[in-house]
């Protein structure tokens, strides 16, 4: 289906081969993913679209190593993720992936900068260095001066920026964002998209994003359409009607 011109030298980062995810069994069986093949290349900005319940989040969670497929293979670079144990998958997340959730998922009792520091703690970064990197990431997402605010003292857009800062503070290879603008108004959403675009273009971070809105998907190089657990279309800037 990759009819459009490929990037100069496509270097695959993630590859799903015939991946299925089945919830329940027998009559109650739900095929959240029903055999999908998907390759994400280094440096891409991919938008995933599709109706509610079509399996977008399920695919994102598998790509993000938060969940495991029922069948099929998932290669991260050259590593077969299906062969990794829980702790090895945690290491993969820790070193290569950044995740932004629709619901922000910040620690309510921790300040913005503490939230951003969190992934660095598990990387064993020393506390002074940690603070420096977290402050820089917050400045990067335009939250200078808000470092010590708690999530409850920040607007939705600001909370999402904190979440993005937390995802990029480790300089990940891939940033996965599941409906990062789902809870935000258009103005804030566009700001977040600009931010993702800048991260993609300037930092070279591969971005995969789920969205319902064509306006947001327009920022991506490539749009993947899901429906009923399968990939309907996959192509460069093909906006749905």
């Amino acid at each position, binding site marked *: 289906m990759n009819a459009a011109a490929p990037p100069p030298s496509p270097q695959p980062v993630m590859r799903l081969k015939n991946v299925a995810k089945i919830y329940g069994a027998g009559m109650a069986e739900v095929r959240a993913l029903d055999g999908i093949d998907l390759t994400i290349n280094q440096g891409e900005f991919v938008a995933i679209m599709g109706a509610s319940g079509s399996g977008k989040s399920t695919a994102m969670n598998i790509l993000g190593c*938060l969940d495991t497929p029922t069948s099929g293979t998932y290669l991260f670079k050259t590593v077969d993720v299906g062969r990794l144990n829980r702790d090895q998958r*945690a290491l993969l997340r820790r070193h290569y992936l950044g995740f932004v*959730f629709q619901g922000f*998922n910040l620690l309510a009792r921790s300040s913005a900068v503490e939230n951003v520091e969190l992934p660095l*703690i598990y990387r*064993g970064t020393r506390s002074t260095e940690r603070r420096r990197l977290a402050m820089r990431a917050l400045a990067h997402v335009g939250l200078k001066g808000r470092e010590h605010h708690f999530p409850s003292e920040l607007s939705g857009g600001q909370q999402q920026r904190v979440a993005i800062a937390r995802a990029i503070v480790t300089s990940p290879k891939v940033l996965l964002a599941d409906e990062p603008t789902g809870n935000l108004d258009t103005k804030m959403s566009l700001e977040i998209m600009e931010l993702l675009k800048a991260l993609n273009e300037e930092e070279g971070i591969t971005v995969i994003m789920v969205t319902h809105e064509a306006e947001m998907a327009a920022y991506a190089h490539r749009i993947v359409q899901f429906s009923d657990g399968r990939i309907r279309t996959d192509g460069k800037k093909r906006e749905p009607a």
Partner: protein
Amino acid sequence: MLWETFRLALQALRRNALRSFLTVLGIVIGVGAVIAMVTIGNGTTVKVADDLSKLGSNLLFVRPGQFGPGRSSAEARAFTAKDVAALKAQLRGVKAVAPVAQTSGTAIVGTESRATSIIGSDNDFFISQDWPLSAGREFLGGEIRGGRAVCLIGATVRDELFGPAFPIGQRVRVNKVSCEVIGLLEAKGQSSFGTDRDDVILMPLRTFQRRIAGNTNISTIYVSAQDGVETSKVQQDIERLLRERRGITGNEEDDFSVRDMKQIAQTLTSTTAMMTALLGAVAGVSLLVGGIGIMNIMLVSVTERTREIGIRLAIGAQASQVLMQFLVEAVVLSMFGGIVGILSGLGLALLASSTMNIPFMLDWKIVVIAFAFSAAVGILFGFFPARRAARLDPIEALRHE
């Protein structure tokens, strides 16, 4: 990394200060109670044994009735002056046979008055109780036989009624009887039961019987064996004599009892030791309840924080790191509770020992056990809920509402 985990745990505990405080409270109370109870109890036991041994090991108590549960000395016949006279005449190897009749009453000097304890006895009282005079003299033979209104007073009575004045030769009204003070007893201090032994007025037995009590009952006879004489032999002699005098024959049970200090000391110390064990057990239950409290709160906290666990896992924490975090939180919490509990328990025991005048008998075993228990509670009850949480798939934990 461990230090980091420790710091994170402290941070988390501070953020949930109220919950942490409540968690710890149960352990503090439990550990504190166990340590305070056992320490105070041990002190009391030692104090009782100590006091009794001071009374002398050659002293025998003769009382009407039998000791023991369900028996009362009230029903049994009291001794008479004739019983005492017979014991004095016939017992071999004794230093003193002192009859004692006792009641409480009021002593008045001028405008000062005091409720005190009144004892009727004779000069053998001083020998049997090993209680010398600090001034004045003992009773004269004529005063004893004639039931004269004379008395000796204890140090407390003297202080309270006479103040700095010299009491000998003065008169004191004891329950309407005006007595001349002929002597002063040396200060003895508190008894093992916390009563003031110096709060006493001593008069001849006959005076007491006629003018204070209005009967001829003698409630106790103290018999003091000579040094080197077996108290058990004297005890047998007393029993034989009194059975004869009270007309008890054959297999009939004694309606009186003769006990030596050792037996009484044993009864008392075994009673206080049992009390200690009982109090310790009750306190132990509160410790257990405190432990269950920790478990409960850790469980709730893990459930409450499942999303947090999910976030941590999602951003790259390994299950073992999350587990470690919760474990350290629980251990820090229960250790802290244990230490505060130990300190407050010891403080309480120290306070009690100084106010109740008992020795501070610190039992390190109990401290170690209480501390180990609180640590074990933390590890056990912190570990299992935390393990459950850390085993969740990150995505499941994140979905948790």
